[in-house]
Every structure is written in structure tokens, then in C-alpha cells.
């Protein structure tokens, strides 16, 4: 294995994130090719956490943009500080040189910087997390194209603002809708799958050092078998961790039907799924898997 990738895996491990070689290579390329990385995968597989850990690994700031329907330029890139502009106009009403006045109020001092602009104007490269891009509208994807390919933003009154430092951009998507080809082509891509059983046990024991290994194995076996069932919302790693924490709090050393009945709410978030599990015996989900 490449030395730098090995070091990356080790450092991420120290920050409680277990990278596999393939994902580590994508992160390595993100740093070296200076291209954004698009992470797709089911909810709860650690996509957002990867960006947070990358920021810790680089000792830099994380700028997060949580996407939602209706997101636009004024909330993501910039907005003019209208109140400040109006005050300035009032103060200099008697100014005869109107062009100079106009130039003043359309300067950088009057721009409210939103996350995307902040990320390219930072002195040191930051990690920019554009989270759940699939929730945003297609128009917003189009705004992003210029930033993702050239690391610059165009503001009509100011012209093109180039990046002072190129941010490391991570986009995540839960695949609730198809992203445009134009966006995909500007990014490196990685599909983040649910971890293997061994890796998930590693994650739990790393995050919860007090947990008994037998209990951790039981939790992971149960969760992996649940993921194989046709649930409305299969549990992610976050749910495995929540459940393991709950069991630790309750001093449980062995998973029984009663324990599952009382604590399954921390794993499953859908009424039908909860009923599905409660109607079955715990042993059905604890049989060994590969």
C-alpha cells in the first residue's frame, strides 16, 4: 500500500474514523488533484463524518452548507448588505460624485459572505462540506458548477472572485433524486456502502472502548441481519452506535427479546419496521453472518 495512503488511514483512525483503502485513495486524490469529491450512499454510513474528520486531519476549518429545497444565491454565496448600503446613501446624500458613491456601496465591504464565498476567500484552505446536495433544487446545482470546476464565483457588480485558497470540497448525497451529469463530471466519485461486519465492530469498539466484544458482535450481527430485511429505513452506523450506547447504559451483556422490545426505538425510526422486529424472535436476527 502507498505510504501516504497508509498514513492517511492511520491518522483518520486516530480521529475515530476507519477508512478502507479504496475510500482513502479517493480522499488522497481529493487532496492531490484538487477536485471535489462526491460521496453517495445510504443515510448513516459516515459521509458527513468523513468531511468532519478530514478537517480535523488537516487542522483546518470546516464550512458546512446544509442543502434544502429553495436554497439560492443569497443564502449560499453572497447577499448585499442593503441596510448598510441605505445608511451609506443617506450619510452621503450630498455627495455630488454619484459614480464614486455607487462604487463604494457595491464594494466587498457591503457584501454579506455566505458559506461558499467564505470558503474561497479563507486565507488557509478549508474543508467545504455541501451536505445532502440531492435536497437542493437543480438551479442550485447550476450555481455550483463554476465553483466546483474553477474555484471562482462571479458577482455581477464585482466581477469574478477567484479563490484565495482552494477549498477541499466534499459533496454528499443520499440519492433521493438524480444529480445532473454536469455536476457529477466535475467531481471524483465514491459510493459509501455499509461497512463490513468486522469494520463495524471496529468502529463500535473504537468509539465505545468500554463495550464488551461479545455484545458489540451481537449488536453488529443483529444490525447486519436487519439491513438484509426489507425495512423502510435500514439502520446506519449512527444507529448501531446509538443502540450500543443504550445497551451500555442499561448494563446489558446479552441481547434478549425483552431488551430488543424496549430499546429498538434507538435503531429503527419507522413504525412498520419496529412492529416487524417486535413480531419476530431475537434469535432470527442473531444467527451468524459472513
Amino acid at each position: 500500500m502507498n505510504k501516504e495512503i497508509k498514513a492517511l488511514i492511520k491518522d483518520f483512525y486516530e480521529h475515530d474514523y476507519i477508512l478502507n483503502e479504496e475510500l482513502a485513495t479517493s480522499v488522497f486524490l481529493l487532496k492531490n488533484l484538487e477536485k471535489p469529491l462526491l460521496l453517495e450512499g445510504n443515510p448513516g454510513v459516515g459521509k458527513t463524518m468523513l468531511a468532519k474528520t478530514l478537517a480535523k486531519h488537516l487542522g483546518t476549518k470546516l464550512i458546512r452548507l446544509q442543502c434544502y429545497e429553495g436554497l439560492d444565491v443569497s443564502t449560499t454565496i453572497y447577499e448585499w448588505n442593503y441596510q448598510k448600503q441605505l445608511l451609506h446613501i443617506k450619510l452621503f446624500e450630498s455627495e455630488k460624485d454619484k459614480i464614486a458613491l455607487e462604487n463604494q456601496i457595491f464594494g466587498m465591504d457591503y457584501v454579506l459572505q455566505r458559506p461558499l464565498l467564505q470558503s474561497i476567500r479563507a486565507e488557509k484552505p478549508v474543508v467545504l462540506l455541501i451536505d445532502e446536495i440531492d435536497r437542493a433544487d437543480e438551479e442550485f446545482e447550476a450555481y455550483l458548477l463554476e465553483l466546483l470546476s474553477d474555484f471562482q464565483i462571479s458577482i455581477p457588480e464585482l466581477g469574478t472572485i477567484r479563490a484565495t485558497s482552494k477549498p477541499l470540497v466534499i459533496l454528499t448525497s443520499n440519492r433521493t433524486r438524480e444529480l445532473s451529469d454536469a455536476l457529477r463530471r466535475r467531481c471524483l466519485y465514491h459510493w459509501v456502502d455499509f461497512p463490513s461486519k468486522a469494520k463495524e465492530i471496529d468502529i463500535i469498539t473504537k468509539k465505545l472502548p468500554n463495550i464488551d466484544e461479545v455484545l458489540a458482535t451481537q449488536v453488529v450481527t443483529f444490525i447486519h441481519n436487519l439491513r438484509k430485511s426489507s425495512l423502510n429505513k435500514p439502520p446506519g452506523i449512527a444507529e448501531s452506535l446509538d443502540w450500543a450506547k443504550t445497551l451500555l447504559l442499561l448494563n446489558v451483556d446479552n441481547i434478549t427479546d425483552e431488551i430488543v422490545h424496549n430499546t429498538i426505538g434507538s435503531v429503527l425510526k419507522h413504525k412498520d419496521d419496529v412492529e416487524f422486529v417486535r413480531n419476530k424472535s431475537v434469535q432470527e436476527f442473531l444467527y451468524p453472518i459472513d
Partner: protein
Amino acid sequence: MLAVDKTFKERLIDFTMYCRERQFVLGPQETRDAFAIAERGYVLDRKLFQYSLKAIYCKRKEHFDRFDEMFDRFWSRYYEEKLEERKKKIQPIKKEPETSTVIFLGAKFNVPKKEKEIEAKQTKGANESIRLRRTDFSKVDIEDKKHLEELAEELFHQMSMRFKRRLENSNKGSVDIRRTIRNGLGKGGLLLDLAYKKKRKEKRKIVFILDVSGSMDTYSYYLLRYIMVLKKYFKSLEFFTFSTDLTHITPLLRENSEQETIKHIGKNVNSWSSGTKIGESLTKFISVYGNKFLSQKHIVVILSDGLETGSVTVLKEAVRTIRRKCKTLVWLNPLKGMKDYQPIQKGMVSVMPHLDAFESAHNLDSLLKLEKLLMDV
């Protein structure tokens, strides 16, 4: 920086072409990035090179799942050659087996004569996609099946993007004065940001009823995938399958991956690949689901070869009722794609007068042509 030789560059370009032929969307930028990683020496480490190319060339999960196999198929020979070169430096020179030069996807390779035939089989012509698009699903051989699936996946994806663009086009309505004034309050009353009323979205309601009986076996799989793509863009799409009995499939279309959904459906539909009782199944549809899914807003699409084994009278009556209760009734029959096909089977003859449209659905081209029909309804 590693000096990358011309042969390697050619091979990398060939690999890009090889991926493009398998519906990867790759432009010059991806090739440039691939050269960049080769020049950085990543090519010396097979896994690093493989994972790097994977991150650059894959743009969606379906690509991601197929890439490793494609990489192995294409690059194994290269890495074997490199290994042999290293061995040769250590061992005394042996006489090389008789080889011949073959051209594979535009690149020259020296291969032992015995392998020549196998390699030649893998060579695909430039018109491969066109040929596959026109091939009847029932006549696809095992060799072509995989390529056809890859092609179907890509073409359906492109179609879905077109649907999306058209459906989401011009969503802006007139200016919303009330919201515009409210937005201006914080800006000294200046109306700088115009707020728009959203156009009322037209509700399209489509019901698909797919025949999964034995005689439709070779078509059902592709038709199923086609419907699953449409499901993403028609919020009100209901899906049923039938052979001897009717199954409501819509609740099963929740899986993230199409393959998982297909497996899921396979498990839950008991009558898959059995006989055909179209009339009885449609009658059940009317009696159980008719109140909910049959109205003047619904378009009903039946996908079946019309080879009825039950009562023709029941079939005729069911189709007549559906037509009376819905807005449009479309019948898609894969057999229509056959040369000289005439709908002369008793089942088809009885239903023909009640149909608004009767189209074929036997190959990828015919499925893609339905796009216009569905957009216009």
C-alpha cells in the same frame, strides 16, 4: 514525475474508450486526470491505480459496481506483462511462445495464438449500441445480455433526465405581490427581490399493469426496469403485476437500488412466470383497486402479449370497464414488434376496439419511443 511511455498512454486512452463504450460518460478532462495520476507514479501500484481511476471515471453507483471487473479484464494483461518483464530480468531468457498481434479496441496486443479467438470474440464494433437497441429482448443471447443491460441502464437514465427537465421546466408563475412587498420590508421598502407564485403542478396519474406470465418472461424484466425509472418522475404512479393473480407492487418500490427492488419483487410476486389470466386479473384490479386508481385523471397502461388462457368475454368486459372509467387506455404488446404481426388472437381482437393506443414494447428503441406518448398524456 514518472515518464509515461507512448504505449502506456495509448493503452490508457484505449481503456477510456472501452469505458465509454460501456456507457461511462467520460470527456477529455477525465483522460487528463488519468494521465496526471499515471505521471505521479500511481500506475506502479496496481490497487492505487485502480482505485484512483475508479474515483475519476465513475460518476454513479452503477458505474462503481461494474468498474473493478472492467479494470481487471482490461489491465490484467498489462500487469502480468510487467511481472514477466521483472521475472525475465532475473531468469535466463526462454523462448517466447508463438504470438500474434491482435487489435483490441484500437490497441495492439501480443497474445498467444490460442487466445486469439477468445480476444476476437470480445471485440465489439462501433454500431454495437445501435444493433442492441434494435434487438428483440427475447432474441438476446447470453453474450449480449450483459451489454444490453448496461445499455438499457444508461439509456433509461438519459430518458429519466429528459423527463425531469420537461416536468420541472418553467415552474415559475406570476409575481407574488404580497410576498414581494414583505421581502422588501427589511430593505427600506425597496422591491429588490421579486417573489413568484409557484405554478400549480399538473398531476399525472399513471397505472401500469404488467403481465409477468411465462410467455412474457423475456420482456418482463426490461419492462419492469423501465417502469421503475418512470416511478422516480411520476409522483402518482401505481404498479401492478399479474399472471394468474394480481399483485400491487407500488409498496415494494422503496429500495434504493433497482437491482434490490427487482429481487424484492421477485420474492413477493408468487405467480411470476406462470400462466396468463388477463381478464380475471383485470377484473380483480377493477373491483379491489378501481375506486382508488380509476378516474378521468388516470392513464392506464397494460403491458401484455394478450395471450389469454382464461375467458375472452371476461377480458373484454374488464377492458371495456377500465376504458370507460379512465382517461386513456394504452396497451403495449411486445409481439407487435414482430414482422407481419397482426392482433388476431381472440384476446387481442376482443380488446382492440377499446384501446386509445396500441404500441410495441419489444426492444430498447420501442420503449424509448414511448417517452413521447407518456409525456403527452
